[in-house]
């Protein structure tokens, strides 16, 4: 396997239908991200496919189920699974979420909100410490989508900056999540991005969203099942202007378009990076 390469430019989330065209090299895509949990299997074709992807492209592992801010430290068996994959595939980036998802042995299969309190901050930092210690790597932590305001002692950038300071982790800025939190909870999206510790941001995500079936535009859901909206593209431009070039990932997890269509959307992300005055050739890959 080639030496670990830091991703640059605009990559996509690698879903199963995209594996074959990615391996066929039909369209240049500089890197891919996978959900770590989808590869926690004993063997078989899925791991073989990932091996072949990794031989050609930088990879990022994006965890969705470690429950870093949960009532108990992350499940040691889960961490062992992550470590096995990290050791085998040597991903360039490893990331997780500033949320909880498990309690008393039940995995709730969603990114559940944490109240932004000192107590929750300690739990989250403790979970991140466990994770980083287990895999022997620094990870990036993604900001959640907020659907309603919870009683909190600090705002989210403050909460995330502090957890990065305490644990040494980096941040994964999901621009769409910021946009949705702003729309759902009435915060200022640009002020949020401005308040994040720019040096800690190691990756950016963008994705599509949909209006809730019952509440309509009053409640926007982070479904990753639609093209990126114009409002999110605008906010991405703002974020890139503030932060400079970062590995940028286009996520799509539902209502998957064909590979070509997704690549067209990826090219727009590439263009957003390429027009930054500070972007070098390497930054836009």
């Amino acid at each position: 396997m080639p030496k670990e390469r830091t991703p640059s430019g605009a990559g996509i989330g690698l879903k199963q239908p995209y594996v074959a065209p990615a391996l066929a090299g039909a369209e240049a895509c500089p890197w891919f991200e996978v959900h770590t949990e989808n590869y926690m299997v004993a063997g078989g074709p899925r791991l073989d496919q990932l091996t072949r992807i990794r031989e050609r492209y930088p990879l990022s592992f994006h965890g969705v189920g470690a429950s870093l801010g949960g009532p108990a430290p992350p499940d040691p068996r889960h961490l062992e699974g992550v470590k096995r994959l990290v050791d085998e595939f040597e991903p360039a980036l490893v990331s997780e979420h500033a949320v909880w998802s498990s309690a008393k042995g039940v995995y709730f299969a969603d990114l559940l909100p944490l109240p932004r309190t000192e107590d929750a901050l300690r739990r989250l930092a403790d979970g991140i410490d466990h994770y980083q210690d287990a895999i022997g790597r620094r990870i990036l932590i993604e900001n959640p989508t907020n659907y309603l305001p919870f009683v909190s002692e600090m705002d989210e950038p403050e909460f995330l900056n502090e957890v990065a300071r305490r644990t040494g982790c980096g941040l994964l800025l999901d621009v769409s999540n910021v946009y949705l939190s702003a729309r759902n909870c009435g915060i200022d999206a640009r002020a949020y991005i401005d308040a994040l510790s720019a040096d800690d941001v190691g990756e950016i995500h963008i994705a599509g969203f949909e209006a809730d079936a019952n509440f309509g535009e009053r409640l926007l859901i982070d479904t990753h099942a639609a093209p990126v909206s114009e409002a999110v593209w605008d906010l991405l431009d703002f974020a890139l202007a503030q932060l400079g070039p970062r590995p940028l990932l286009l996520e799509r997890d539902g209502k998957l378009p064909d590979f070509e269509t997704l690549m067209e959307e990826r090219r727009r992300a590439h263009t957003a990076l390429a027009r930054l005055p500070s972007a070098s050739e390497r930054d836009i890959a």
Partner: protein
Amino acid sequence: MLDAYYDSFSRFLRDGTPDALADYCGDKAELAYLHVYRNGFLKTCTDVLRSNYSSVHQLVGEACFTAVAHRYVQANPPRTASLVTYGDDFAQLIEATRDLHGLAYLACIAKLDRTWTELYFAEDAETPDAGALAGMSAETLMALRCRLAPNAQLVSLDFSALEAWARLRQGALRTQMEIRRSPLQILMWRWDGDILFRALDVAEHAFIAGLAAGHACAEAALAATELDATFDVAAGLASLLRDRMLIFETQHPSGGTR
């Protein structure tokens, strides 16, 4: 305070009652928005079950499948964060919820879907090929003990549902098929990334089941030939080895155990 929050949220996700979370929400009027999380939990689990039991889903349709799946998630929520193989006892729930779907054979279809998933993600084991039998004396062969490799399983069905299931997997079940209550033994295995299967006659099933249970080849062969005197033990063994389905448990003539 935080532990009470986790407890209240967990209860809400299980039973859908958000009232205990009111103290944690900044705006009580927005408490209804919490259903996003419960919907997300149920949707993710249902999506995984739909993917892992695609033949069942095709047979019963979306509304019925969702009703059964939600009942399953309530009774058997995920215990690990990797949902790749979630739903291990879905066939049992299907058997117990015939009132929802009305299909006596549906649990057999679920069992086949389940076996497919387990084999697809099974460990890649080192398995000897048919050449391993070359030069083996009859005595050594008869004393040989094997087991099925992780990429192979026997499946017992109460209904003749294999052909219908195979067509469902290919998206090619377009006409009505008769599915009779009739015991059926199947061998399913993974070969070069594909899942293959075939129905077994009683002798071959007895032979493979004997090997899988850890019996010596001679005992497994005896069980088979009692059912069918013409059963060819060497050919049966060679076939299993050719498709890389066996692991030797006893000393292999070429050296160490495999």
